[in-house]
Protein backbone atom coordinates (compact mmCIF):
# COMPACT_ATOMS: atom_id res chain seq x y z
CA UNK A 1 0.00 0.00 0.00
CA UNK A 2 1.50 3.37 -0.98
CA UNK A 3 1.02 6.73 0.67
CA UNK A 4 -0.57 8.35 -2.35
CA UNK A 5 -3.55 5.99 -2.51
CA UNK A 6 -4.03 6.43 1.20
CA UNK A 7 -4.18 10.17 0.84
CA UNK A 8 -6.51 10.15 -2.13
CA UNK A 9 -8.81 7.99 -0.06
CA UNK A 10 -8.73 10.38 2.85
CA UNK A 11 -9.52 13.39 0.71
CA UNK A 12 -12.39 11.60 -1.03
CA UNK A 13 -15.96 12.42 -0.09
CA UNK A 14 -17.02 10.92 3.20
CA UNK A 15 -20.63 10.46 2.10
CA UNK A 16 -21.49 6.92 1.08
CA UNK A 17 -18.78 5.40 3.24
CA UNK A 18 -19.39 2.81 5.94
CA UNK A 19 -18.35 3.66 9.47
CA UNK A 20 -16.50 1.49 11.93
CA UNK A 21 -19.86 0.22 13.23
CA UNK A 22 -20.02 -2.15 10.25
CA UNK A 23 -16.99 -4.02 11.51
CA UNK A 24 -18.13 -4.08 15.11
CA UNK A 25 -20.16 -7.33 15.27
CA UNK A 26 -17.33 -9.31 13.70
CA UNK A 27 -14.68 -7.68 15.85
CA UNK A 28 -16.61 -8.38 19.06
CA UNK A 29 -17.27 -11.98 18.03
CA UNK A 30 -13.62 -12.60 17.24
CA UNK A 31 -12.51 -10.83 20.40
CA UNK A 32 -14.79 -13.03 22.51
CA UNK A 33 -13.87 -16.41 21.04
CA UNK A 34 -10.22 -15.87 20.08
CA UNK A 35 -8.67 -12.87 21.85
CA UNK A 36 -10.31 -13.42 25.23
CA UNK A 37 -8.98 -17.03 25.32
CA UNK A 38 -5.49 -15.64 24.65
CA UNK A 39 -5.80 -13.43 27.73
CA UNK A 40 -7.41 -16.24 29.73
CA UNK A 41 -4.61 -18.66 28.89
CA UNK A 42 -2.17 -16.21 30.46
CA UNK A 43 -4.35 -15.92 33.56
CA UNK A 44 -5.01 -19.66 33.83
CA UNK A 45 -1.29 -20.36 33.73
CA UNK A 46 -1.19 -18.96 37.29
CA UNK A 47 -4.04 -21.12 38.55
CA UNK A 48 -4.87 -24.66 39.49
CA UNK A 49 -8.02 -26.03 37.86
CA UNK A 50 -9.27 -29.56 37.18
CA UNK A 51 -11.82 -28.58 34.55
CA UNK A 52 -14.74 -28.45 36.98
CA UNK A 53 -15.50 -25.71 39.48
CA UNK A 54 -13.51 -22.47 39.42
CA UNK A 55 -9.78 -22.02 38.77
CA UNK A 56 -7.82 -21.27 41.92
CA UNK A 57 -4.97 -18.75 41.91
CA UNK A 58 -1.66 -20.35 42.91
CA UNK A 59 0.88 -17.72 41.95
CA UNK A 60 3.93 -18.84 40.00
CA UNK A 61 3.73 -22.52 41.03
CA UNK A 62 3.04 -23.73 37.49
CA UNK A 63 5.86 -21.69 36.04
CA UNK A 64 8.35 -23.00 38.57
CA UNK A 65 7.19 -26.50 37.76
CA UNK A 66 7.54 -25.79 34.04
CA UNK A 67 11.19 -24.82 34.27
CA UNK A 68 12.11 -27.96 36.17
CA UNK A 69 9.95 -30.28 34.04
CA UNK A 70 12.24 -32.50 31.98
CA UNK A 71 9.25 -33.67 29.88
CA UNK A 72 8.66 -30.05 28.85
CA UNK A 73 12.28 -29.65 27.79
CA UNK A 74 12.12 -32.85 25.79
CA UNK A 75 8.81 -31.84 24.18
CA UNK A 76 10.25 -28.49 23.09
CA UNK A 77 13.26 -30.19 21.55
CA UNK A 78 11.01 -32.67 19.73
CA UNK A 79 8.72 -29.89 18.51
CA UNK A 80 11.76 -28.00 17.25
CA UNK A 81 13.11 -31.12 15.52
CA UNK A 82 9.75 -31.85 13.93
CA UNK A 83 9.38 -28.24 12.74
CA UNK A 84 12.84 -28.15 11.18
CA UNK A 85 12.52 -31.59 9.58
CA UNK A 86 9.09 -30.91 8.09
CA UNK A 87 10.28 -27.57 6.73
CA UNK A 88 13.45 -29.03 5.22
CA UNK A 89 11.60 -31.93 3.60
CA UNK A 90 8.47 -30.12 2.49
CA UNK A 91 9.76 -26.82 1.11
CA UNK A 92 11.95 -28.17 -1.74
CA UNK A 93 9.33 -30.78 -2.62
CA UNK A 94 6.44 -28.32 -2.63
CA UNK A 95 8.48 -25.75 -4.54
CA UNK A 96 9.47 -28.19 -7.29
CA UNK A 97 6.00 -29.73 -7.60
CA UNK A 98 4.36 -26.31 -7.55
CA UNK A 99 6.59 -24.81 -10.23
CA UNK A 100 6.26 -27.97 -12.33
CA UNK A 101 2.48 -27.99 -12.10
CA UNK A 102 2.31 -24.29 -12.98
CA UNK A 103 2.97 -25.34 -16.58
CA UNK A 104 -0.16 -25.71 -18.69
CA UNK A 105 0.79 -29.03 -20.35
CA UNK A 106 -1.94 -31.65 -20.33
CA UNK A 107 0.03 -34.32 -18.43
CA UNK A 108 0.88 -31.78 -15.74
CA UNK A 109 -2.75 -30.73 -15.35
CA UNK A 110 -3.84 -34.35 -15.05
CA UNK A 111 -1.21 -35.33 -12.47
CA UNK A 112 -1.77 -32.12 -10.49
CA UNK A 113 -5.43 -33.07 -10.18
CA UNK A 114 -4.33 -36.31 -8.49
CA UNK A 115 -1.65 -34.64 -6.36
CA UNK A 116 -4.39 -32.44 -4.88
CA UNK A 117 -6.39 -35.35 -3.42
CA UNK A 118 -4.81 -35.61 0.09
CA UNK A 119 -6.03 -32.05 0.70
CA UNK A 120 -9.59 -33.35 0.79
CA UNK A 121 -8.91 -35.74 3.67
CA UNK A 122 -9.02 -34.59 7.29
CA UNK A 123 -5.89 -35.03 9.38
CA UNK A 124 -7.81 -37.66 11.36
CA UNK A 125 -8.57 -39.59 8.17
CA UNK A 126 -4.96 -39.33 6.99
CA UNK A 127 -3.56 -40.43 10.35
CA UNK A 128 -5.92 -43.41 10.47
CA UNK A 129 -5.10 -44.34 6.87
CA UNK A 130 -1.37 -44.35 7.58
CA UNK A 131 -1.78 -46.05 10.93
CA UNK A 132 -3.56 -48.87 9.16
CA UNK A 133 -1.11 -48.96 6.26
CA UNK A 134 2.02 -49.17 8.39
CA UNK A 135 0.67 -51.84 10.72
CA UNK A 136 3.65 -54.16 11.23
CA UNK A 137 1.56 -57.34 10.88
CA UNK A 138 -1.04 -56.60 8.22
CA UNK A 139 0.07 -53.39 6.53
CA UNK A 140 2.58 -52.36 3.88
CA UNK A 141 5.67 -53.24 5.96
CA UNK A 142 4.46 -56.84 6.19
CA UNK A 143 3.59 -57.06 2.50
CA UNK A 144 6.66 -55.28 1.10
CA UNK A 145 8.93 -56.71 3.81
CA UNK A 146 7.62 -60.14 2.84
CA UNK A 147 8.76 -59.58 -0.76
CA UNK A 148 12.17 -58.42 0.47
CA UNK A 149 12.43 -61.03 3.19
CA UNK A 150 12.41 -58.59 6.14
CA UNK A 151 10.13 -59.27 9.08
CA UNK A 152 8.52 -57.14 11.75
CA UNK A 153 9.10 -53.57 10.67
CA UNK A 154 7.42 -51.61 13.45
CA UNK A 155 7.80 -48.04 12.26
CA UNK A 156 6.05 -46.33 15.16
CA UNK A 157 7.31 -48.75 17.80
CA UNK A 158 10.86 -47.39 17.73
CA UNK A 159 11.67 -43.88 18.78
CA UNK A 160 13.74 -42.67 15.82
CA UNK A 161 11.57 -44.17 13.09
CA UNK A 162 8.44 -42.96 14.93
CA UNK A 163 9.51 -39.33 14.50
CA UNK A 164 10.48 -39.84 10.85
CA UNK A 165 7.14 -41.51 10.24
CA UNK A 166 5.38 -38.44 11.63
CA UNK A 167 7.47 -36.24 9.34
CA UNK A 168 6.55 -38.44 6.38
CA UNK A 169 2.83 -38.39 7.17
CA UNK A 170 2.97 -34.61 7.61
CA UNK A 171 4.69 -34.34 4.23
CA UNK A 172 2.07 -36.52 2.54
CA UNK A 173 -0.65 -34.41 4.11
CA UNK A 174 0.70 -30.89 3.63
CA UNK A 175 2.86 -30.87 0.49
CA UNK A 176 -0.29 -30.73 -1.70
CA UNK A 177 -1.40 -27.47 -0.05
CA UNK A 178 2.03 -25.88 -0.26
CA UNK A 179 2.63 -26.95 -3.84
CA UNK A 180 -0.72 -25.36 -4.66
CA UNK A 181 0.49 -22.09 -3.13
CA UNK A 182 3.68 -22.30 -5.21
CA UNK A 183 1.70 -23.17 -8.32
CA UNK A 184 -0.37 -20.01 -7.82
CA UNK A 185 2.76 -17.98 -7.19
CA UNK A 186 4.64 -19.36 -10.20
CA UNK A 187 1.74 -18.64 -12.54
CA UNK A 188 1.92 -14.96 -11.64
CA UNK A 189 5.54 -14.61 -12.76
CA UNK A 190 5.41 -12.65 -16.03
CA UNK A 191 6.35 -14.78 -19.04
CA UNK A 192 8.35 -11.85 -20.43
CA UNK A 193 11.05 -12.44 -17.79
CA UNK A 194 11.61 -15.97 -19.08
CA UNK A 195 11.49 -14.87 -22.72
CA UNK A 196 14.12 -12.25 -22.03
CA UNK A 197 16.31 -14.71 -20.17
CA UNK A 198 16.21 -17.31 -22.92
CA UNK A 199 17.10 -14.68 -25.52
CA UNK A 200 20.09 -13.88 -23.33
CA UNK A 201 20.95 -17.56 -23.44
CA UNK A 202 20.06 -18.57 -19.89
CA UNK A 203 19.27 -22.26 -19.49
CA UNK A 204 16.32 -23.77 -17.59
CA UNK A 205 18.37 -24.19 -14.42
CA UNK A 206 19.61 -20.61 -14.38
CA UNK A 207 16.11 -19.35 -15.11
CA UNK A 208 14.87 -21.30 -12.09
CA UNK A 209 17.47 -19.87 -9.73
CA UNK A 210 17.54 -16.32 -11.08
CA UNK A 211 13.89 -15.74 -11.97
CA UNK A 212 11.58 -18.30 -10.41
CA UNK A 213 13.08 -18.44 -6.92
CA UNK A 214 13.45 -14.67 -6.35
CA UNK A 215 9.98 -14.06 -7.77
CA UNK A 216 8.50 -16.59 -5.37
CA UNK A 217 9.94 -14.82 -2.34
CA UNK A 218 6.57 -13.83 -0.89
CA UNK A 219 5.10 -17.27 -1.49
CA UNK A 220 8.05 -18.89 0.25
CA UNK A 221 7.44 -16.69 3.30
CA UNK A 222 3.70 -17.37 3.40
CA UNK A 223 4.23 -21.10 2.98
CA UNK A 224 7.02 -21.20 5.58
CA UNK A 225 4.94 -19.38 8.18
CA UNK A 226 2.05 -21.78 7.59
CA UNK A 227 4.44 -24.74 7.86
CA UNK A 228 6.19 -23.60 11.03
CA UNK A 229 3.00 -22.62 12.86
CA UNK A 230 1.39 -25.83 11.57
CA UNK A 231 4.26 -27.98 12.88
CA UNK A 232 4.24 -26.24 16.24
CA UNK A 233 0.58 -27.12 16.62
CA UNK A 234 0.85 -30.57 15.05
CA UNK A 235 -1.38 -32.55 17.31
CA UNK A 236 -4.05 -34.76 15.70
CA UNK A 237 -1.54 -36.98 13.94
CA UNK A 238 0.48 -37.57 17.11
CA UNK A 239 -2.67 -38.36 19.09
CA UNK A 240 -3.84 -40.94 16.59
CA UNK A 241 -0.59 -42.48 15.35
CA UNK A 242 1.82 -42.60 18.28
CA UNK A 243 0.04 -41.17 21.34
CA UNK A 244 3.32 -39.49 22.11
CA UNK A 245 5.11 -42.81 22.24
CA UNK A 246 7.00 -45.04 22.30
CA UNK A 247 7.41 -43.87 25.90
CA UNK A 248 7.48 -40.10 25.53
CA UNK A 249 9.64 -40.08 22.41
CA UNK A 250 7.14 -38.25 20.21
CA UNK A 251 5.48 -36.20 22.95
CA UNK A 252 5.75 -32.80 21.29
CA UNK A 253 4.62 -29.69 23.19
CA UNK A 254 1.02 -29.44 21.88
CA UNK A 255 0.43 -33.11 22.69
CA UNK A 256 1.94 -32.65 26.15
CA UNK A 257 -0.49 -29.77 26.68
CA UNK A 258 -3.47 -31.87 25.60
CA UNK A 259 -2.42 -34.72 27.86
CA UNK A 260 -1.81 -32.46 30.84
CA UNK A 261 -5.06 -30.56 30.38
CA UNK A 262 -7.55 -33.12 29.16
CA UNK A 263 -6.13 -36.48 30.30
CA UNK A 264 -4.58 -35.60 33.69
CA UNK A 265 -7.11 -32.75 34.21
CA UNK A 266 -4.37 -30.31 35.20
CA UNK A 267 -5.80 -27.45 33.18
CA UNK A 268 -3.80 -24.79 35.03
CA UNK A 269 -0.47 -26.38 34.22
CA UNK A 270 -1.77 -27.21 30.74
CA UNK A 271 -2.39 -23.49 30.22
CA UNK A 272 1.19 -22.74 31.22
CA UNK A 273 2.40 -25.08 28.48
CA UNK A 274 -0.14 -23.54 26.08
CA UNK A 275 1.14 -20.06 26.84
CA UNK A 276 4.64 -21.14 25.85
CA UNK A 277 3.16 -22.43 22.58
CA UNK A 278 1.49 -19.10 21.86
CA UNK A 279 4.77 -17.29 22.44
CA UNK A 280 6.70 -19.71 20.24
CA UNK A 281 4.23 -19.53 17.34
CA UNK A 282 4.15 -15.74 17.44
CA UNK A 283 7.92 -15.46 17.74
CA UNK A 284 8.48 -17.89 14.86
CA UNK A 285 6.15 -15.94 12.57
CA UNK A 286 7.74 -12.62 13.54
CA UNK A 287 11.26 -13.94 12.92
CA UNK A 288 10.25 -15.31 9.52
CA UNK A 289 8.56 -12.05 8.55
CA UNK A 290 11.60 -10.00 9.61
CA UNK A 291 14.10 -12.36 8.00
CA UNK A 292 12.44 -12.25 4.62
CA UNK A 293 11.43 -8.61 4.60
CA UNK A 294 7.83 -9.65 4.08
CA UNK A 295 6.56 -6.81 6.27
CA UNK A 296 7.78 -4.24 3.77
CA UNK A 297 5.90 -6.16 1.07
CA UNK A 298 8.34 -5.02 -1.57
CA UNK A 299 7.01 -5.43 -5.04
CA UNK A 300 8.41 -8.33 -7.00
CA UNK A 301 7.81 -6.36 -10.17
CA UNK A 302 10.37 -3.64 -9.51
CA UNK A 303 11.77 -2.10 -12.68
CA UNK A 304 9.16 -3.47 -15.01
Amino acid sequence: MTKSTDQSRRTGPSVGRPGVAWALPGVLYFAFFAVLPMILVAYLSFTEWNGLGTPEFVGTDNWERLFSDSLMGQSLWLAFLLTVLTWVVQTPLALLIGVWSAGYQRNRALLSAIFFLPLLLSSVAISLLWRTLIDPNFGLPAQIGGWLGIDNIDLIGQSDTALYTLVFVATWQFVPLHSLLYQGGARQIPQSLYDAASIDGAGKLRQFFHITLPQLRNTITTSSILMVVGALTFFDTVLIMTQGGPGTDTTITPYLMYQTGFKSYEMGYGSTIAFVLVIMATAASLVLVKMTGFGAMRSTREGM
Partner: protein
Amino acid sequence: MNSVATAQTQKVPLPLRPSPWTRLSKRLRSANYPAGVASLFWLAVIGIPLYALVASTFRKTSDYLDQGPLSVPSNPTFENYHKVVDMGFDTYFINTVIVTVCTVAIVVLLSVPIGYAVVRSTTRSTQRVFQFFLLGLAIPAQAVVIPVFLIITELHMYDSLAAVILPSAAFSMPVCVLILTGTMRDISEELYEAMALEGVSVAKMLWYLTIPLSRSGLSTVAIYTAIQAWNGFLFPLILTQSREQRVLTLGLYDFVGEFRVDAPGMLTAVLLSAVPLFVAYLFARRALVQGLMGVGGK
Protein backbone atom coordinates in the same frame (compact mmCIF):
# COMPACT_ATOMS: atom_id res chain seq x y z
CA MET B 1 16.06 -5.05 -16.45
CA ASN B 2 17.49 -4.00 -19.81
CA SER B 3 16.90 -7.39 -21.28
CA VAL B 4 13.19 -7.01 -20.72
CA ALA B 5 13.08 -3.90 -22.80
CA THR B 6 14.94 -5.53 -25.67
CA ALA B 7 12.66 -8.52 -25.55
CA GLN B 8 9.67 -6.27 -25.98
CA THR B 9 11.07 -4.23 -28.87
CA GLN B 10 12.71 -7.03 -30.88
CA LYS B 11 9.92 -9.39 -31.75
CA VAL B 12 11.23 -12.84 -32.59
CA PRO B 13 9.92 -13.64 -36.08
CA LEU B 14 7.55 -16.60 -35.98
CA PRO B 15 7.91 -19.30 -38.65
CA LEU B 16 4.97 -19.39 -41.04
CA ARG B 17 2.50 -22.20 -40.32
CA PRO B 18 4.65 -24.91 -38.73
CA SER B 19 3.68 -28.39 -39.88
CA PRO B 20 2.14 -30.67 -37.23
CA TRP B 21 5.29 -32.75 -37.40
CA THR B 22 7.63 -29.91 -36.45
CA ARG B 23 5.20 -28.83 -33.76
CA LEU B 24 5.32 -32.29 -32.22
CA SER B 25 9.09 -32.57 -32.39
CA LYS B 26 9.39 -29.12 -30.89
CA ARG B 27 7.14 -30.13 -28.02
CA LEU B 28 9.13 -33.29 -27.44
CA ARG B 29 12.38 -31.34 -27.45
CA SER B 30 11.13 -28.76 -24.96
CA ALA B 31 9.63 -31.40 -22.68
CA ASN B 32 11.33 -31.66 -19.30
CA TYR B 33 12.09 -35.37 -18.97
CA PRO B 34 13.78 -35.45 -15.53
CA ALA B 35 10.81 -33.57 -14.10
CA GLY B 36 8.47 -36.01 -15.82
CA VAL B 37 10.18 -38.98 -14.19
CA ALA B 38 10.22 -37.26 -10.80
CA SER B 39 6.52 -36.50 -11.13
CA LEU B 40 5.81 -40.19 -11.67
CA PHE B 41 7.67 -40.94 -8.45
CA TRP B 42 5.48 -38.46 -6.58
CA LEU B 43 2.43 -39.97 -8.28
CA ALA B 44 3.40 -43.30 -6.69
CA VAL B 45 3.81 -41.66 -3.26
CA ILE B 46 0.36 -40.08 -3.46
CA GLY B 47 -1.37 -42.73 -5.54
CA ILE B 48 -0.40 -46.03 -3.88
CA PRO B 49 -1.85 -45.21 -0.43
CA LEU B 50 -5.01 -43.86 -2.06
CA TYR B 51 -5.29 -47.04 -4.14
CA ALA B 52 -4.82 -49.16 -1.00
CA LEU B 53 -7.50 -47.06 0.71
CA VAL B 54 -10.09 -47.56 -2.03
CA ALA B 55 -9.26 -51.19 -2.82
CA SER B 56 -9.36 -52.25 0.83
CA THR B 57 -12.90 -51.03 1.33
CA PHE B 58 -14.10 -53.77 -1.06
CA ARG B 59 -12.29 -56.58 0.72
CA LYS B 60 -13.50 -59.00 3.34
CA THR B 61 -11.50 -58.62 6.54
CA SER B 62 -10.12 -62.14 6.26
CA ASP B 63 -8.95 -61.47 2.69
CA TYR B 64 -7.25 -58.27 3.83
CA LEU B 65 -5.39 -60.03 6.60
CA ASP B 66 -4.23 -62.73 4.16
CA GLN B 67 -3.33 -60.64 1.14
CA GLY B 68 -2.23 -57.26 2.51
CA PRO B 69 -3.33 -53.78 1.46
CA LEU B 70 -1.82 -53.70 -2.03
CA SER B 71 -3.33 -56.75 -3.73
CA VAL B 72 -6.35 -56.44 -6.01
CA PRO B 73 -9.57 -57.44 -4.20
CA SER B 74 -10.27 -61.00 -5.40
CA ASN B 75 -13.96 -61.16 -4.49
CA PRO B 76 -15.25 -57.60 -4.03
CA THR B 77 -17.88 -57.02 -1.35
CA PHE B 78 -19.93 -54.08 -0.08
CA GLU B 79 -20.35 -55.42 3.44
CA ASN B 80 -17.88 -52.88 4.89
CA TYR B 81 -20.09 -50.04 3.70
CA HIS B 82 -23.19 -51.56 5.31
CA LYS B 83 -21.28 -52.11 8.52
CA VAL B 84 -20.00 -48.53 8.73
CA VAL B 85 -23.36 -46.96 7.92
CA ASP B 86 -25.00 -49.13 10.60
CA MET B 87 -22.57 -47.81 13.22
CA GLY B 88 -24.17 -44.38 13.36
CA PHE B 89 -22.33 -42.86 10.44
CA ASP B 90 -25.52 -41.12 9.25
CA THR B 91 -25.88 -39.14 12.51
CA TYR B 92 -22.25 -38.04 12.36
CA PHE B 93 -22.72 -37.08 8.74
CA ILE B 94 -25.77 -34.89 9.41
CA ASN B 95 -24.03 -33.26 12.39
CA THR B 96 -21.01 -32.44 10.24
CA VAL B 97 -23.22 -30.90 7.56
CA ILE B 98 -24.92 -28.71 10.19
CA VAL B 99 -21.58 -27.64 11.68
CA THR B 100 -20.12 -26.85 8.24
CA VAL B 101 -23.12 -24.87 6.97
CA CYS B 102 -23.47 -22.82 10.17
CA THR B 103 -19.75 -22.10 10.40
CA VAL B 104 -19.59 -20.87 6.80
CA ALA B 105 -22.73 -18.75 7.31
CA ILE B 106 -21.35 -17.06 10.45
CA VAL B 107 -17.94 -16.41 8.89
CA VAL B 108 -19.40 -14.91 5.70
CA LEU B 109 -22.00 -12.81 7.53
CA LEU B 110 -19.40 -11.34 9.89
CA SER B 111 -16.41 -11.03 7.57
CA VAL B 112 -18.10 -9.30 4.63
CA PRO B 113 -19.06 -6.15 6.58
CA ILE B 114 -15.58 -6.10 8.13
CA GLY B 115 -13.92 -6.24 4.72
CA TYR B 116 -16.30 -3.59 3.41
CA ALA B 117 -15.59 -1.24 6.31
CA VAL B 118 -11.83 -1.80 6.17
CA VAL B 119 -11.64 -1.08 2.43
CA ARG B 120 -14.14 1.77 2.22
CA SER B 121 -13.99 3.59 5.52
CA THR B 122 -11.52 6.42 5.98
CA THR B 123 -11.50 6.52 9.76
CA ARG B 124 -8.39 5.53 11.64
CA SER B 125 -10.24 3.10 13.89
CA THR B 126 -11.30 1.00 10.92
CA GLN B 127 -7.70 0.68 9.81
CA ARG B 128 -6.93 -0.60 13.31
CA VAL B 129 -9.56 -3.28 12.77
CA PHE B 130 -7.49 -4.62 9.91
CA GLN B 131 -4.33 -4.73 12.03
CA PHE B 132 -6.32 -6.44 14.77
CA PHE B 133 -7.17 -9.32 12.42
CA LEU B 134 -3.61 -9.46 11.07
CA LEU B 135 -2.45 -10.08 14.63
CA GLY B 136 -5.28 -12.57 15.07
CA LEU B 137 -3.69 -14.71 12.36
CA ALA B 138 -0.95 -15.63 14.80
CA ILE B 139 -3.28 -17.16 17.42
CA PRO B 140 -3.05 -20.94 17.07
CA ALA B 141 -6.34 -22.60 17.99
CA GLN B 142 -4.51 -25.52 19.61
CA ALA B 143 -2.86 -23.26 22.13
CA VAL B 144 -6.10 -21.76 23.45
CA VAL B 145 -8.30 -24.87 23.72
CA ILE B 146 -8.27 -24.82 27.53
CA PRO B 147 -9.73 -21.29 27.87
CA VAL B 148 -12.15 -22.01 25.00
CA PHE B 149 -13.30 -25.03 27.01
CA LEU B 150 -13.74 -22.74 30.04
CA ILE B 151 -15.80 -20.21 28.05
CA ILE B 152 -18.01 -22.89 26.51
CA THR B 153 -18.73 -24.54 29.86
CA GLU B 154 -19.47 -21.14 31.42
CA LEU B 155 -21.97 -20.52 28.60
CA HIS B 156 -23.52 -23.94 29.35
CA MET B 157 -22.96 -25.05 25.79
CA TYR B 158 -20.67 -28.02 26.46
CA ASP B 159 -21.60 -31.08 24.38
CA SER B 160 -23.63 -29.26 21.71
CA LEU B 161 -23.05 -28.54 18.05
CA ALA B 162 -23.05 -24.80 18.84
CA ALA B 163 -20.00 -25.40 21.03
CA VAL B 164 -18.16 -26.61 17.94
CA ILE B 165 -19.55 -24.02 15.53
CA LEU B 166 -18.85 -20.81 17.49
CA PRO B 167 -15.08 -21.17 18.06
CA SER B 168 -14.50 -22.83 14.66
CA ALA B 169 -16.02 -19.80 12.95
CA ALA B 170 -13.95 -17.38 15.05
CA PHE B 171 -10.66 -19.05 14.17
CA SER B 172 -11.45 -19.01 10.44
CA MET B 173 -12.12 -15.27 10.46
CA PRO B 174 -8.62 -13.72 10.22
CA VAL B 175 -7.74 -15.54 6.99
CA CYS B 176 -11.17 -14.74 5.55
CA VAL B 177 -10.99 -11.04 6.41
CA LEU B 178 -7.57 -10.91 4.76
CA ILE B 179 -8.82 -12.59 1.59
CA LEU B 180 -11.95 -10.42 1.40
CA THR B 181 -10.14 -7.11 1.87
CA GLY B 182 -7.71 -8.22 -0.85
CA THR B 183 -10.55 -8.78 -3.31
CA MET B 184 -12.59 -5.74 -2.31
CA ARG B 185 -9.59 -3.39 -2.74
CA ASP B 186 -9.65 -4.17 -6.47
CA ILE B 187 -13.10 -2.62 -6.98
CA SER B 188 -12.59 0.75 -8.59
CA GLU B 189 -13.33 3.97 -6.73
CA GLU B 190 -15.26 5.41 -9.71
CA LEU B 191 -18.01 2.84 -9.36
CA TYR B 192 -18.60 3.88 -5.76
CA GLU B 193 -18.48 7.57 -6.70
CA ALA B 194 -21.04 7.04 -9.44
CA MET B 195 -23.32 5.33 -6.96
CA ALA B 196 -22.77 8.04 -4.33
CA LEU B 197 -23.82 10.68 -6.87
CA GLU B 198 -27.05 8.80 -7.37
CA GLY B 199 -27.58 8.94 -3.63
CA VAL B 200 -27.35 5.20 -3.09
CA SER B 201 -27.10 4.20 0.57
CA VAL B 202 -24.06 2.51 2.08
CA ALA B 203 -25.92 -0.75 2.60
CA LYS B 204 -27.18 -0.82 -0.97
CA MET B 205 -23.66 -0.19 -2.31
CA LEU B 206 -22.49 -3.24 -0.40
CA TRP B 207 -25.34 -5.34 -1.74
CA TYR B 208 -25.38 -4.21 -5.38
CA LEU B 209 -21.72 -3.37 -5.98
CA THR B 210 -19.25 -4.80 -3.48
CA ILE B 211 -20.72 -8.28 -3.04
CA PRO B 212 -21.30 -9.03 -6.75
CA LEU B 213 -17.80 -7.79 -7.62
CA SER B 214 -16.05 -9.80 -4.90
CA ARG B 215 -17.54 -13.16 -5.81
CA SER B 216 -14.10 -14.78 -6.29
CA GLY B 217 -13.02 -13.76 -2.79
CA LEU B 218 -16.34 -14.89 -1.36
CA SER B 219 -16.07 -18.34 -2.90
CA THR B 220 -12.49 -18.67 -1.63
CA VAL B 221 -13.67 -17.78 1.86
CA ALA B 222 -16.60 -20.20 1.72
CA ILE B 223 -14.46 -23.06 0.40
CA TYR B 224 -11.66 -22.50 2.89
CA THR B 225 -14.04 -22.30 5.84
CA ALA B 226 -16.07 -25.30 4.69
CA ILE B 227 -13.02 -27.55 4.39
CA GLN B 228 -11.72 -26.36 7.76
CA ALA B 229 -15.08 -26.99 9.42
CA TRP B 230 -15.69 -30.33 7.73
CA ASN B 231 -12.27 -31.65 8.73
CA GLY B 232 -12.03 -29.95 12.13
CA PHE B 233 -11.15 -32.30 14.97
CA LEU B 234 -9.78 -30.43 17.98
CA PHE B 235 -12.91 -28.46 18.97
CA PRO B 236 -15.26 -31.46 18.61
CA LEU B 237 -12.77 -33.57 20.59
CA ILE B 238 -12.71 -31.31 23.63
CA LEU B 239 -16.15 -29.66 23.43
CA THR B 240 -18.50 -32.59 22.77
CA GLN B 241 -18.96 -35.91 24.42
CA SER B 242 -22.16 -37.75 23.54
CA ARG B 243 -22.79 -39.86 20.47
CA GLU B 244 -25.68 -37.60 19.38
CA GLN B 245 -23.40 -34.57 19.03
CA ARG B 246 -20.55 -36.37 17.31
CA VAL B 247 -19.15 -35.13 13.99
CA LEU B 248 -17.42 -37.31 11.38
CA THR B 249 -13.82 -36.73 12.43
CA LEU B 250 -14.61 -37.58 16.03
CA GLY B 251 -16.69 -40.56 14.91
CA LEU B 252 -13.68 -41.81 12.93
CA TYR B 253 -11.49 -41.41 15.98
CA ASP B 254 -13.91 -43.46 18.04
CA PHE B 255 -14.04 -46.17 15.38
CA VAL B 256 -10.41 -46.91 16.26
CA GLY B 257 -11.50 -48.80 19.33
CA GLU B 258 -14.28 -50.67 17.56
CA PHE B 259 -12.26 -51.62 14.46
CA ARG B 260 -9.15 -52.76 16.28
CA VAL B 261 -8.41 -55.58 13.87
CA ASP B 262 -10.89 -54.69 11.14
CA ALA B 263 -8.72 -52.65 8.77
CA PRO B 264 -11.19 -52.71 5.85
CA GLY B 265 -13.96 -51.39 8.12
CA MET B 266 -11.66 -48.62 9.37
CA LEU B 267 -10.60 -47.64 5.86
CA THR B 268 -14.20 -47.63 4.65
CA ALA B 269 -15.08 -45.15 7.40
CA VAL B 270 -12.07 -43.04 6.37
CA LEU B 271 -13.16 -43.05 2.73
CA LEU B 272 -16.83 -42.33 3.50
CA SER B 273 -15.90 -39.35 5.68
CA ALA B 274 -14.32 -37.67 2.66
CA VAL B 275 -16.94 -38.57 0.04
CA PRO B 276 -18.71 -35.17 0.05
CA LEU B 277 -15.43 -33.34 -0.51
CA PHE B 278 -14.47 -35.82 -3.26
CA VAL B 279 -17.81 -35.21 -4.98
CA ALA B 280 -17.36 -31.45 -4.63
CA TYR B 281 -13.89 -31.82 -6.14
CA LEU B 282 -15.25 -33.82 -9.06
CA PHE B 283 -17.82 -31.19 -9.97
CA ALA B 284 -16.12 -27.97 -8.91
CA ARG B 285 -12.42 -28.74 -9.18
CA ARG B 286 -11.53 -25.34 -10.57
CA ALA B 287 -13.36 -23.45 -7.83
CA LEU B 288 -11.82 -25.61 -5.09
CA VAL B 289 -8.28 -25.31 -6.43
CA GLN B 290 -8.58 -21.58 -7.07
CA GLY B 291 -10.16 -21.20 -3.68
CA LEU B 292 -7.32 -22.82 -1.80
CA MET B 293 -4.75 -21.06 -3.97
CA GLY B 294 -6.38 -17.78 -2.96
CA VAL B 295 -5.56 -18.53 0.68
CA GLY B 296 -1.91 -17.93 -0.16
CA GLY B 297 -2.70 -14.36 -1.10
CA LYS B 298 -2.18 -12.58 -4.35
